[in-house]
C-alpha cells in the first residue's frame, strides 16, 4: 500500500527500515515514533497510519500515544525550535516576561511557527540550567540571563 504523497516515498522507506530494525525489541513503538518525528519533522496522521499498518497496531493507539507525550507534535515545526524554559526557577526569575519579549520579536504566540517557517516557539519544563534563569534553548545551545529586548533580538538575529 502506498501512502498519500505529501512526503517523498524515500522518507517512508527510511521509516520502514527503522521499524524492521526495531521489531525484535519489546514494545518499541515510542522509539519508532521518536525516530519518525526526526525523519518527517512532525507526526501527521498519515505517518501515524503508516506506522500502524507496518507495526500492526491500531492507529487509535498510536494517536493516543502521540497526543499524550509533549515531545510529539502533529503540526509542522520551524527550522529552529525555540524552547523557552518555564520551570519554576525561570518563572521566578521572569520567564513570563521573556516569553513576551520573544513573542514581540518573532510576532508569534507560544506554540506557533513564524510564517517564514524559520522559528517555532515552544515551552519546556526545566532544562536544568537554573543558575542561568531565565533561559531559552535553540538547538543544543542555551541562552541564559536574557533580561532585555536587545539581547533577545541579538540572539534571534544569529539564526535569521
Amino acid at each position, binding site marked *: 500500500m502506498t501512502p498519500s504523497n505529501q512526503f517523498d516515498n524515500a522518507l517512508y522507506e527510511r521509516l520502514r527500515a527503522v521499524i524492521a530494525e526495531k521489531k525484535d525489541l519489546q514494545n518499541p*513503538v515510542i522509539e519508532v515514533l521518536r525516530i519518525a518525528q526526526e525523519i518527517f519533522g512532525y507526526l501527521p496522521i498519515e505517518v501515524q497510519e503508516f506506522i500502524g499498518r507496518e507495526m500492526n497496531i491500531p492507529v487509535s493507539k498510536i494517536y493516543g500515544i502521540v497526543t499524550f507525550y509533549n515531545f510529539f507534535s502533529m503540526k509542522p515545526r520551524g527550522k529552529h525550535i525555540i524552547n523557552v524554559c518555564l520551570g519554576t526557577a525561570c518563572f521566578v526569575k521572569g520567564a513570563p516576561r521573556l516569553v513576551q519579549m520573544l513573542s514581540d520579536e518573532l510576532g508569534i504566540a507560544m506554540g506557533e511557527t513564524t510564517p517564514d517557517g524559520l522559528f517555532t516557539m515552544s515551552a519546556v519544563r526545566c532544562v536544568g540550567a537554573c543558575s542561568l534563569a531565565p533561559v531559552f534553548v535553540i538547538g543544543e545551545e542555551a541562552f541564559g540571563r536574557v533580561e532585555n529586548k536587545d539581547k533577545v533580538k541579538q540572539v534571534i538575529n544569529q539564526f535569521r
Partner: protein
Amino acid sequence: MSLKRIDLLICCGSGCISAGAIKIKERFHEVLNEKGMTNEINIIETGCMGPCDYGPVMVIYPEGIFYKKVTPEDVEEIVNDHFMKGRPVKRLMLQDDEEQAISAKKDVPFYQKQVKVALENCGYIDPESLDEYIATGGYEALGTVLTTMSPQETIELMKASGLRGRGGGGFPTHIKWQMVHDAKADQKYYICNGDEGDPGAFMDRSLLEGDPHRVLEGMMIGAYAMGASRGFFYIRAEYPLAIQRIKQAIAQAHEAGLMGDNIFGSQFCFDAEVRTGAGAFVCGEETALIHSIEGSRGNPTPKPPYPAISGLWGKPTVVNNVETLGNIPTIYRKGPEWFASMGTATSKGTKVFALTGDIRNTGLVEVPMGISLRELIFDVGGGMVGDHKFKAVQLGGPSGGCLTTEHLDVGVDYETLKEKGAMMGSGGVIVMNDQKCMVNVAKFFMDFCVDESCGKCSPCRIGLKQMYGILERITNGDGREEDIDELIRLGEAVNKLSLCGLGQTAPNPVLSTLRYFRNEYESHIRDKACNTKVCLPLIHFDIDKDKCIGCSLCARKCPVNCITGSRDEKYTIHQLDCIKCGNCQEVCPVKAVGRIPGMHPEMIAKREADKQRLASED
C-alpha cells in the same frame, strides 16, 4: 589516565556548558598546542561540580585551585602564569567578604557544610572513563557483595543503612527489595527512574552525566539482592547527554566483564538497556513509568497490585530513583553504620538539593539530612541576591509547598517537611525574595499540574482545572469572598480522591500558600491589590507630577496613546485605556513613572458600572 604534571578539571555540567565551558576547553587545547605543552597537562571534562552560579568553573590539581567565571580570554593567562610560572591567577579566584582571594576548592564556603556521598565523584572524575571510576573504589562494592554475601544479607545491610527513596516519596529501599526478593517469578526487573520532571531539580541529570558507573553499580547490587536479571534506565528525552553517558557506561561495563553473564565469577547475570521518555511529568509515577516502557500512554494504575508484585510486563519490578542508586555503592563500601550515622532518626544519610531562585549560590549541593533550612539557604546557598529579603522557599516541586521565615530553623527530613506542608520531593529548592507574589506562584504550579494531569481520573482532571480557574479569577481582579474556602474544599477533595501521586499532591502549593500567605489572597480579593506588583490587573502605572519633566517620551512610546499632557501641565496616564505594557516606565529618563499596587479607583468604578449594566440588561 596518564601521568602528567597538572590535572585541569573543567566542569562540563549543564550549567557550565550553557555558560561556555566547551569553548574554554577548546581554547585550552589550542593554547597548549601552540606552546607544545599537551604532554604536561591533563584536561579532564568532569560532571557538575555544583556551584553553577560561578560557571564556568574549573579546579586545577595538584594544588586544588578553584577558578570561577572563566572566559576564553582568560585561558592564555592561566597557561602563562599558572601552568608555566606557577603563579595562580588571583583575579579568577573567589573573593571572601574581606576581599581575600580563596584559592583552594576545599576553602570555598559553598563546599564547607556539604558531605558528598552520591555526588562523591561528580566533578572529580572523567565520567567517560571506567578506569577513573574504578580508581576511586568503583565496582569494589559490587565485587564484595557478589562474592561474599547472600541476597538476603545484601538486603539486611540495606535495611541497617536506613536508606529511603530519594525520588520524593521516601519509601524505605530495603522493603521494595524484600518484596521483589520474596516474589516468585521467572523474570524480575529493575528500573532506574531518571524521568526527572520536577522543574528546578537537576540532580539526577547531573549524577547520570557526571558519574554514570556509580548508578549502574548501584543497580546491579540491588538487582542481585532481589534476583533481577534485567534493568531499564528510563531517562527524559531532554537529557541527551545523560542518555549517551549511561549507554556508554553499559557498553564499557560489558567490555570489562562487569556486566553480562557470571559477573565476578558468581552465578549472577545482568543486562540493562536505556529507554527514553517523551515528555510527560506523570511518568515519574512508577506505574505510569512502567506503562510508558511498555509502549503505551503513561497513565497510572491503582495500587495494589504494587509493581513489586506485578510490574513491568506483569513481572515483579522495583523502581528506584537515580539518586537512590547513587548512594548504594558507597553504603556497601563504607558500611551501613557510617551511612546511618548521618541524618536524623528517621531520615538517614545525605540528600542532594538543587538550589535555585533568588539565592546567591545557585547550584547542586549535597548535605546531611536534618540540616536546617537556614544553613542550607544562607550558609551553603550564600543568602539572598541583592538587597531583597527572604520571603519563602518552595520545596518538592509541583507536589511540594512553600515555607516561610518562621520555618528557617526547621530541620530538613521527610517527616518534618511533610508536617509543615511541604515535602522533600526530588530536592528542588526554590528560594524567593519579597518581590514574589505567592498567589501567582501558586497559579504557576496549578497551571503546570493542569497541563501534566494525564486525565484518567476526574478529581485531578476536573478539580485542578477548577482550582486554576479560581486562581486566575483572583489574579485578574475578579476574586470573590468565598473563593478561599472553595480552594481549600476543592484542594482537599482532589487530594483525597485522586488515583496517583500527581493528583494527590497537586493542591499542595495552593494549600500551603493559603496556610502561610492567606493575607496575600485576601488583599488580591478584597482590596484588588497585588502588593508585590506582579499581577498586572491588580496594579496600575502612574506618573509622579513632581518628578515629571514633561519630555513627552512616554506619550510617544505608548502603543495605545493613552498618555497625554504638555511640558507645563506634565503628563497623565488615562487609566481606562492603559494596557500596562510598561513602556512608559522603561523610557522615562527621570523615573517619574511608577508601578502602584492596586487597581486604579477609576478602573474599579468602571468595572462596577459594567457589571450593573450587564445585570440590568439581563
